[in-house]
């Protein structure tokens, strides 16, 4: 543990510090948006958006290498793909009334396949693993800045729309009857979800990023009687998972993304099992 703290201040271990900053910055966004996503039961949509991000990353890497578009960073590609996927998935789930899950599933897979094909065709060797499962060595100072800006946007909009978002998540039909444009709020929530996913793609990768949405929020829901409490607890649990997971992965020489997710999962299972035992003993 002590070596972990000294590593955090080690000038040669800047990536570890960046990863911790990225995680702590992202935790409130995950706590707030994750709570809405869990309450609205949109985890599956969030999963599809996350996987589409690979398409954007792949396309950006390809264009960077092939056409020397240096400004087209994987982060920018990820943001564009995530927002695009969110709007597409949102419009399909709002407009089409049949077999929405099949269409979402198709988008999920196609987005990912596009990314793999682009990465395969990109000159030079790129390891798709680091995008799928995260790689804290890749985080740059510029990424941190982007994460901070996105974070402010997501948290700001997430909190501003709090009362109406709750009304829409709780009873969409009633909210619509009150004159709230519920479709707009659904699209907004999906776009905020998309941006939140991008925040942590570097650290835990696109496959496991959903865990940071659902696990802290689902764990927090067991202690919360109000939405804002759930957001607060989910944020704290997210921070503990990131800080603890990074520390464990450093100490035990484990990949950091999976360790963070395992820790979040451990909290969730502990709470569920603990609650079950408590109910049985009563």
């Amino acid at each position, binding site marked *: 543990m002590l070596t972990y703290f000294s590593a955090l201040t080690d000038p040669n271990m800047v990536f570890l510090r960046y990863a911790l900053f990225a995680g702590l910055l992202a935790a409130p966004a995950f706590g707030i948006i994750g709570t809405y996503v869990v*309450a609205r039961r949109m985890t599956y949509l969030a999963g599809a958006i996350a996987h589409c991000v690979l398409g954007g990353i792949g396309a950006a890497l390809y264009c960077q290498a092939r056409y020397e578009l240096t400004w087209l960073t994987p982060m920018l590609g990820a943001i564009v793909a995530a927002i695009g996927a969110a709007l597409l998935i949102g419009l399909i789930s709002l407009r089409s009334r049949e077999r929405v899950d099949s269409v979402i599933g198709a988008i999920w897979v196609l987005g990912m396949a596009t990314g793999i094909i682009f990465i395969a065709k990109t000159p030079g060797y790129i390891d798709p693993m680091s995008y799928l499962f995260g790689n804290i060595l890749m985080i740059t100072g510029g990424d941190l800045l982007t994460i901070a800006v996105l974070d402010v946007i997501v948290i700001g909009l997430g909190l501003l729309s709090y*009362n109406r978002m*709750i009304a829409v998540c709780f*009873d969409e*039909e*009633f909210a619509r*009857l*009150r*004159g709230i444009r519920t479709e707009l709020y659904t699209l907004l929530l999906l776009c905020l979800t998309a941006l939140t996913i991008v925040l942590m793609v570097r650290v835990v990768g696109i496959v496991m990023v959903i865990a940071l949405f659902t696990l802290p929020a689902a764990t927090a*829901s067991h202690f919360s009687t109000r939405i804002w409490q759930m957001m607060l607890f989910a944020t704290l649990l997210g921070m503990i998972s990131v800080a603890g997971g990074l520390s464990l992965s450093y100490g035990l020489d484990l990949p950091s993304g999976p360790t963070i997710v395992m820790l979040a999962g451990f909290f969730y299972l502990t709470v569920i099992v603990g609650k079950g035992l408590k109910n049985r003993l009563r």
Partner: protein
Amino acid sequence: MQSPVPLQIPAVQCEQVSFSYGEIPILTDVSFSIQKLDAVALVGPNGGGKSTLLKLILGLLTPQTGTIKVLGVTPQQARKKIGYMPQYLQYDPSFPVSVMDVVLMGRAGSIGLGRYSTEDRRIAMQAMAELAVDGLASRPFNSLSGGQRQRILIARALACEPEILLLDEPTANVDPGVELQFFEILKELANRVTVLTVSHDLGFVSQMVSRVFCVNRQVKIHPTSELTGEIIHEMYGGDVRMVRHDHCCSEQGHSHADIL
């Protein structure tokens, strides 16, 4: 027929309205008019079209033919003046909201991106007080009984400050003991707002409404004073048993119909 100037805009006016889900006709050629401060009950068999009629009035569904006017305008334009209590709340029991949060949703249309004002909170508290549930304001919504929840949903509809109140099965989850209290509250409300209530329990509603609409693909209107066994038999088909009560609330007594 020829009155050139209508004295008052009706609360709800349906003209030759027909609605079907795909090939299945639900309502055919329905016409009626409900004046302001009228109290009307919609009764009829399951699948007869009661909830569909409410959704048409709310503008959640659009009729294939015919027109519906609510307070003289389209249902969509009149929405904000309608308070609606749905029969089923498609709600997630683990959704962490307080009773106050739920009732405040009746005010959600007027807040924009911001917060609820003190005035919004006052209106919500008042709505709860009217249904005698203001003591529950800070309780988690999912800790309430079915009957309490039902009242909270009526309070939420009242918090909209409606001119028309649409209640879909307000007594569905209410214990028989609480029902009478419930009935007094609804009767009180009917003095202030136009009330349309869907009910299975004709005995319950016939005491508080002036007219009963029998909805079974078509709508037949009966003043409550004319309700006889024959009419009720016609509404529900064969499986109806009449129970005659003589409550002290009316000198002539009144009739209940229990549907088996």
